[in-house]
């Protein structure tokens, strides 16, 4: 493995990792506040992808611009899911929470299949396969743009949670539900907000990945698993952790593919995941709840 190969895989790993991070952030917020592992997370992302696709093909909205519409819509979608379904089972048995999100995921992906058929949809923009060269390293334009957008969104979200009253209320809820309730925070409302934000993040990730990937009803499951890994790696409930976790996974996948081989890269990823769980179960970013 030459140095340039390594550098190339590092760069593309970081860029892809940015999008992973966004998926992870969505999951981590949901988990942090509600302690529910959302098995339907990838399917929520899939909804965002279809939204982006139809905005592009029917209205001609560029995928990156469409985030402006996708994000609020997905927020609403997540909030409704939370209000109607998840809120009912908060505090019930953990296995039921897992199962409910599995069920909701099945409903989402199969409704998509009925509505849009199981065909692969490909969103081709003028820049889908364009790249530029930087010191012998090729950098994909759409990936770079989505990486920058991810950075911006992450920063904005961080600011929201740290600096605004609502953000602090969400963090308080994440730290200790009961205490937050005693302090007069409307915990149910915070749950709705955070599921909304989580869904918006997943949807945005879907939008960002659309120009370089493809869309079909079952696309979510692979990303759900990835989101789990990222979230645990960074520390459940930690936004900074999820960001770092996303980039780490992106890089590990990319470098393992060249350093070991592409068929074993998932094993490397999962092994790192297990090691982190065992050595530092609270994740890389420790116990900081967001």
């Amino acid at each position: 493995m030459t140095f340039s190969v390594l550098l190339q895989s590092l760069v593309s790993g970081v860029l892809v990792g940015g999008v992973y991070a966004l998926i992870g952030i969505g999951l981590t917020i949901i988990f942090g506040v509600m302690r529910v592992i959302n098995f339907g997370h990838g399917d929520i992302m899939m909804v965002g992808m279809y939204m982006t696709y139809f905005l592009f093909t029917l209205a001609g909205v560029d995928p990156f611009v469409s985030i402006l519409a996708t994000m609020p819509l997905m927020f609403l979608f997540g909030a409704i899911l939370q209000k109607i379904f998840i809120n009912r089972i908060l505090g019930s048995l953990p296995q039921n929470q897992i199962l409910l999100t599995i069920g909701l995921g099945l409903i989402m992906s199969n409704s998509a299949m009925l509505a849009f058929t199981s065909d692969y949809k490909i969103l081709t923009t003028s820049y889908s396969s364009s790249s530029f060269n930087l010191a012998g390293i090729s950098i994909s334009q759409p990936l770079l743009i989505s990486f920058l957008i991810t950075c911006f969104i992450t920063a904005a979200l961080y600011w929201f949670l740290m600096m605004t009253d609502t953000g602090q209320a969400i963090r308080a809820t994440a730290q200790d539900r009961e205490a937050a309730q005693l302090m007069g925070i409307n915990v149910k409302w915070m749950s709705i907000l955070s599921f909304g934000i989580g869904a918006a993040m997943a949807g945005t990730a879907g939008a960002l990945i659309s120009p370089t990937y493809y869309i079909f009803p079952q696309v979510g499951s692979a990303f759900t698993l990835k989101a789990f890994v990222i979230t645990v790696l960074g520390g459940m409930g930690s936004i900074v952790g999820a960001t770092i976790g996303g980039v780490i996974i992106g890089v590990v996948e990319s470098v393992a593919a060249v350093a070991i081989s592409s068929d074993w890269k998932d094993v490397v990823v999962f092994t790192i995941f297990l090691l982190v769980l065992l050595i530092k179960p609270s994740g890389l970013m420790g116990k900081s709840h967001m």
Partner: protein
Amino acid sequence: MLRKIVLAAAITVLSLPGASYAAKVKIGFINTITGAEAPIGENLTNGVTMAIEDLRKKGIEVDLVKEDDTGKPEKSLAAFEKLATRDNVAGVVGPYTSACSSAVASQADKYKVPLLVPAAAKEEITRKGYKYVFRLNAPADVYSSVLMDAILTLDKPKTIAYIYESTDFGSSTVKTAKEYAKKLGIKEVADEKYQKGAPDFRSTLTKIKSKNPDIVFMVSYVVDAITLMRQSKEIGLSPKAYLGGGAGFTTAQFLAQKEISNLVMASTQWTDDVNWPGAPDFAKRYTAKFKKEPTYHAACAYEAMMIMAETASKNAGDRDKTRNGLKAGKWNGIMGEVSFADYDGFTNQNKHQMLVQQVQNGRYETVFPKKFATKPPVYPFKWK
């Protein structure tokens, strides 16, 4: 109590009167309608739908019993049992996936129900000597050999790199490709398997680029083909030829990606411009009906259903006679000449001529073998 009710209900359901239509011929069709394999399964469904219409025009009424196997072998078995013993079909077309076909094949012999596999590529399916199992499409080894043969008419390449999905289709196609390449003295410089649906191949492709192969051989069942080619272009991997084994490289979606699909060669069971009887017409009608272009899966399923229904109808739905009819018959339709022969360890295998197509100026052109070619191949590969 509950148990009894359910049992009773199950028995009632099982004994629902199977409608009997004297004039109709009853054919089963096992396909993957839901689940992860559904996107391709849909093409088979469409092909069969067209076949049923065309059969009606020919005066053959088919009572089609559609079964979804969700891509799982045990469900496929259940579907087959149901078709064989409850629906009393004359023959079965399907299943779509290799895994399901492998599981179902042995049952076909057990129940003596003719099974015509339309598109599953796993070689073993017709290598077990089953009398009632027939296959229309060419098995996995031909996907690679036809491509190599095509390249050999143009050049004598020295090195080859493989990148393929870690599925049955991917690994068995590449396995045969490797054997064939070895025989031809082409040196393997990279062997990269990937998990279907991976979003990022850049590092793997960079690694391949550093080996500078003459040929890049790819197998991808789905639209990973597009991701692969997009990223190959991105990092500037330019071998003398990109060869795509089947599926993912033969879709309309791939074609539509003009920037990256140009000059890629792919092996396929069928093309819409091949001069087999009715092929272009089928493509036209299919496109009009389903608003998308037919894949070779659709064509295979169509032809398989035509052959099965015609044979069964001729033999009044008798399974043994239908089986003998399939074994003895010869057809010439949209898949070219079809007959089920025993050769090289295969039983009842149609020695289907696979084709090589190349994207030229935004169109799929058949470039190999020469007698079916619409355009000569363009070589070597250059990015647009």
